[in-house]
């Protein structure tokens, strides 16, 4: 905090009031409601509710369906995170190496950043469409009869593909600015000591990028868990039956389609715990980075 500060009995509260009001009404109130209703069995027609303790949690955690969705979510998150980080890093390293045309590549590579997940999903649907999709034709050439929307595996493949496509620019931006922030002296010293470019990258450059990479790892996991909702919703088109979905989608399906408010709330709380752990990790890490730089 600042050495010199204003001191006023009323002003700081006045300045904080709008932000706090919005947060209390639209954040704390719903969050408390979620925790509360996760312990109740609510009548879907609104005729009251009964306290059931941890039944909703047990119901969720013991259901084979929930567990298989959790497994898919973990796999989906791992693959999306890995591929979007790897491709983002590869492109950033190449863009950093190229001097001529650097700006043009940069513009092209970040342009997709601003596309919304459902729009990405819609474009993806077209590319994987049974009649007009070029990807389906390419797959058919290799003897893979692709049926996105009908076959579990094919839909999962398409979803991961679209989710990765949309996330590459974000990782590219961060890796590139991380690379460009590295001191020239370090690079020159490394270049003198080590002739092999690949070895130099993994032993000198990559460790220096590690803070950026770790930050991005958490952001990408959060992206894959939550922000892909739009991609999934567009690609499964409300027919979740045989299609792969993630945990967030399940919260939505049970709450709004299935009217299972207790179960949906219990799932929300489980996800809250997951996000809480991730954010604590991120915070600890950010604090450390500030400390050392």
């Amino acid at each position, binding site marked *: 905090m600042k050495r*010199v500060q204003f001191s006023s009995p009323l002003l700081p509260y006045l*300045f904080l009031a709008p932000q706090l009001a*919005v947060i209390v009404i639209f954040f704390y109130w719903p969050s408390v*409601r979620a925790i509360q209703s996760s312990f109740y069995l609510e009548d879907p027609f609104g005729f009251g509710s009964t306290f059931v303790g941890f039944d909703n949690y047990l119901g969720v955690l013991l259901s084979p369906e929930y567990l298989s969705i959790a497994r898919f979510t973990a796999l989906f998150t791992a693959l999306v995170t890995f591929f979007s980080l790897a491709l983002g890093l590869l492109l950033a390293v190449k863009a950093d190496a*190229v001097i001529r045309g650097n700006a043009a590549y940069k*513009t092209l590579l970040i342009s997709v950043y601003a596309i919304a997940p459902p729009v990405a999903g819609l474009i993806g649907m077209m590319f994987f469409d049974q009649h007009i999709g070029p990807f389906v034709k390419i797959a058919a050439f290799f003897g893979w009869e692709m049926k996105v929307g009908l076959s579990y595996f094919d839909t999962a493949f398409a979803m991961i593909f679209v989710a990765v496509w949309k996330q590459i620019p974000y990782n590219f931006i961060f890796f590139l600015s991380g690379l460009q922030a590295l001191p020239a002296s370090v690079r020159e010293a490394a270049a003198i000591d080590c002739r092999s470019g690949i070895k130099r990258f993994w032993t000198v450059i990559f460790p220096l990028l590690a803070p950026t990479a770790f930050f991005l790892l958490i952001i990408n996991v959060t992206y894959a868990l939550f922000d892909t909702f739009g991609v999934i919703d567009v690609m499964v088109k409300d027919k979740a039956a045989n299609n792969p979905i993630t945990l967030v989608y399940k*919260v939505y399906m049970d709450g709004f389609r299935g009217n299972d408010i207790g179960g949906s709330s219990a799932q929300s709380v489980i996800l809250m715990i997951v996000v809480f752990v991730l954010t604590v990790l991120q915070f600890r890490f950010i604090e450390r980075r500030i400390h050392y730089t």
Partner: protein
Amino acid sequence: MHRTRILDHAVLILGALFLTLPVVVAFMTSTHEAAAIHSTGLMLSPGGHLVETYETVLTRKGGFTGQVTGARMMMNSFILGIGFAVGKIALSMLAAYAIVYFRFRFATLAFWVIFTTLLLPLEVRIMPSYEVMSSLGLINSYTGLIVPLLASATGTFYFRQFFKSVPEELLEAARIDGAGPFKFFIDVLVPLSKTMIAAIFIIMFVYGWNQYLWPMLMTTDERFFTLMRGIKQILQVWIGSQIPDYNEAFALAVLAMLPPVLMVVLFQSWFIKGLTESDK
């Protein structure tokens, strides 16, 4: 040395094609007729129906009630994007100002109350949020669309970091010159934050414009539909039709991505600066 350069360019060109080609194809295909797309597939060259397809999408009254047009949805998307960005900047600048520049009793508590919101994305508390909104009677209103999205600390966090980097001497000098809290904020801090405000505006506009789940739940009245909500709609009509209106779906997708993409591409340097420097 020479050969690696060529390889670098090759990788970059492949990457750029992979990322941008789908967008180009989406645009090109939207300028053809649905029947032509149905028989030949996606297009890489422009067709002759650009004006009529986009005119149809923007002006035809569609939906169940026959009230909503593409132009209306676009306007709603702009209201959501701009309203959200402006609201976010106003709320978070004030809050960050109080936290950084004032000495008061519950400063630490206020800090934690605000920053806990970073822990839970809207998606995980979606069901109770909806209940709260319906008990407040805010379903189908711009207030209900925008204000609940403001309940997160990202903006406050950005401005807090930025204010902390502003030199101490400025406040000392301003106080010697007799400037009070309001004068210092308006005459010193706001002009200093211009670039930061621009960068955050871009990031927040894109975020607001791209909202999908929240508008989907909050709006049942078609007059409040945003473009993202329209995409959901077009997909629902799709199921069961003989020759789907591929061209119109693509045109809608192009309209939905054009403003945020333009914003990011045109104001690239601000946007990158805001994005990468604010979360340190």
